[in-house]
């Protein structure tokens, strides 16, 4: 991490909202939702109070890793347009405060999840925080163009943690949910990298668009999308799938594949001409893609006690 210049005057008093923004609330939403689906899709029921507390601590752990990431990446956040308004580069929160909040909330969330749920879930949360804050942020992100691929695992762990909260153990179904997010992350972020084209170059982050070129990135998006389609539809035939999931997955994956093929077929002139319309649409669709897949898994799990969900 290097020094960052602040843009806010020295007498600015940090507000609660500034500290909250350190926790990356939008990422927390995804973490809460996927961890909740992982917990509810498990074949073991959880007491509502324990379930609520556990998901809250997972969210706090995710927020803590977000704060540590912002502390470490403050120098490149200040350069990139997308991240220049974050609390540290904009001077609303001091780097030391972000570090303290990140470390304190990491410890609190892991300890409390261990008490509320079980030690395996707590251990998995600790591993996820370290994976994101240390392995991804401090090393991978600035070292390899595969940063998004490997780092995507950090965002994929929450449904596994949710499953462990309920069952106390790992299972194939939990890893299928992990794989769904893991394979979804590269096309999602590479589409973003295509239309936020100068950000990563300016910050010297070795994004695939920078190291291998934009044509190669388009090919990578298609390749990962094909693998994701096979995985997402295949999951429909497992115990967490069912008719609702399969119907949702078929529609979404056809749309996603069409989007990836369009991106692959385009060149930079086409994209510049319409201000990356196809890439932007693909990115927006990717958000719905993940939300609706997990929504369908949740629907199957919710209907299962009434004999309606799943294949039985």
């Amino acid at each position, binding site marked *: 991490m290097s020094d960052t210049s602040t843009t806010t005057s020295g007498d600015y008093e940090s507000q609660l909202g500034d500290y909250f923004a350190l926790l990356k609330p939008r990422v927390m939403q995804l973490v809460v939702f996927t961890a909740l689906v992982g917990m509810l899709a498990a074949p073991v029921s959880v*007491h509502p109070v324990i379930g609520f507390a556990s998901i809250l601590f997972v969210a706090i752990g995710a927020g803590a890793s977000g704060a540590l990431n912002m502390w470490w990446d403050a120098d490149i956040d200040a350069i990139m347009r997308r991240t220049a308004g974050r609390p540290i580069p904009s001077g609303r929160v001091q780097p030391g405060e972000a570090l303290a909040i990140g470390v304190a909330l990491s410890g609190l969330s892991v300890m409390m999840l261990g008490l509320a749920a079980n030690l395996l879930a707590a251990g998995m949360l600790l591993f996820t925080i370290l994976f994101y804050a240390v392995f991804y942020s401090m090393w991978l992100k600035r070292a390899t163009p595969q940063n998004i691929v490997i780092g995507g695992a950090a965002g994929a762990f929450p449904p596994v943690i949710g499953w462990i909260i309920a069952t106390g153990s790992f299972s194939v179904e939990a890893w299928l949910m992990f794989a769904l997010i893991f394979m979804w992350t590269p096309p999602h972020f590479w589409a973003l990298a295509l239309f936020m084209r100068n950000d990563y170059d300016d910050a010297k982050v070795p994004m695939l668009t920078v190291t291998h070129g934009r044509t190669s990135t388009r090919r990578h998006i298609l390749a990962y999308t094909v693998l994701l389609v096979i995985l997402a539809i295949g999951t429909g035939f497992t115990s967490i799938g069912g008719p609702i999931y399969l119907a949702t997955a078929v529609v979404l994956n056809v749309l996603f594949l069409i989007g990836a093929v369009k991106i692959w077929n385009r060149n930079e002139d086409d994209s510049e001409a319409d201000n990356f319309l196809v890439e932007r649409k693909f990115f927006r669709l990717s958000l719905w893609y993940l939300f609706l897949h997990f929504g369908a898994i949740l629907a199957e799990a919710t209907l299962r006690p009434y004999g309606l969900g799943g294949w039985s």
Partner: protein
Amino acid sequence: MSIRAEHELHSRRRGRNLGIGLMLGAFVLLVMALTFVKITNIDFGDLPGGAIQTQESN
């Protein structure tokens, strides 16, 4: 020397302090709720010596 009831710093940080206070209060309530649920749902047979106690009580 008299102590001023409210320093300017306090009024500047009122929103922040109130928010932190509310969060701490909510945390205390959550721990209480967790403790209550854990204690009322405990299976005493799972505790060390629990099986012996259960046999003795039969």
